[in-house]
């Protein structure tokens, strides 16, 4: 920063600045650990950073539904169809 330049278009990223964006979902990604080959592609492609891998008590992939917007990219890139999109009700 500078003592002269005071107004910068900067923000520090943190979880949930826009609220619980998971409520925007129309379809929910459901993970099937029995098909998962632990390739990490869903983790790599998730545009919202809502997928963690290697930490789940239920298999390998954990999806944070508080912030997952349901875009379906993880299901689309999964090479073994271990993630399927199910309509929200």
């Amino acid at each position, binding site marked *: 920063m*500078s*003592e*002269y*330049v*005071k*107004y*910068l*278009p900067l923000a520090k*990223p943190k979880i949930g600045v826009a609220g619980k964006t998971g409520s925007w979902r129309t379809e929910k990604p459901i993970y099937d650990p029995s098909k998962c080959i632990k390739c990490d592609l869903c983790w790599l492609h998730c545009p919202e950073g809502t997928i963690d891998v290697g930490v789940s008590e239920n298999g390998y992939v954990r999806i944070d539904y508080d912030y997952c917007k349901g875009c379906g990219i993880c299901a689309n890139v999964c090479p073994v169809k271990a993630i399927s999109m199910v309509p929200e009700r």
Partner: protein
Amino acid sequence: MVVKPLTGNYAVAWAVKLAKVKVIAAYPITPQTTIVEKLSEFAERGLLDAKVIRVDSEFSALAATWGAAAGGVRAFTATSSHGLLYMHEVVWWVAGSRIPLVMAIVTRTIGPPWNIWTDHSDIMDQRDTGWIIMMAEHNQEVLDSVIQLYRITEDPRVYLPGIVGLDAFILSHTTEPVDIPPQELVDSYLPPRRQPYVMTIKEPLIMGNIPADLKWNMKMRWDIHASLIRAKEVIEEADREWYKLTGRSYGGLIECYKCDDAKTYIIGMGAWVGDMRDAVDRLRDEGYDVGLIKVRFIRPFPDDKIASVVKNAKLCIVFDRSISAGSAGPLFLDVASHIHRYGINVPVVNVLAGLTGLDVTSNEIAYVVKKIYDSFEKGELRNNIVWYFGGDELWW
């Protein structure tokens, strides 16, 4: 001291080398190409420790340059005309982000029709973006200005990117003797890289996200404007310090030629200022009371400097090498409106000449000035926006 015969483009490349730029990204476009060709050669031969990134377009060229600069290193790109227009969106992003970097624009006409010769339409198209924008008169000034701009843009009072403009072919491909200052001199002139923030993986930052507060957003625009106004003193300092080290000064924001006892001022920017000097000499020999104001920086605009020179003038004649169609030449608009702000009521005439690269000689400049001067003296000036197509073809 080493004097080498250099084209304007090679003068840019030498300056970038002396500034120890670390990343260069560019896409070839005539007449800019030989700048980055030379820089690639410097890098290949191990004379410049820089990464040269070949990209798919000018949009990517500036984006990559910007990314490198945001990451904390000195970066450079160059372009012209259609390439510049293609990167125009990123031009705004760079200024808005407040990340300093330097770009050379070899000014070239915009199509259609295709045209590679110089006019100032492309560089003038950038003047609302928040960049520092200047044009050089000759190749020595090109080299000196690139180095100066690294110092100016990285000053904490400024923190904005900067453009050095040079006219296509008249400078870019014309060889002149250029003094290349020693590396130690440039090292002592340029402080280590400074910038308002550095983008790193360890401490993630979001730049340019949708603002929660529009007032804050508008204040960012104010901040860019205030920083450009503050840049005026930084530009003058940079010129004075350069003079101390090299003996070369360009007056900072403007340079005056035979202004002291003048009543009529020719005002221009870019390479043809050299021809204007000859025209002033010739007109003086014929008894005309003319002086010349070379506008070196168009942004920040040297409003107070010009106002103080012309305050007692009887006539100003502004030469523009581009037009804001439907209005007038951009340099004329700035001069006329700003001297009015300072309460100066001097008639200002706009000459639109040299557009599309039409050659304008010093004889022709003298001819136009005489025509306008004489009609003004007789009270017969029909229009204060005139078009000049060369020879005796003057459209009033």
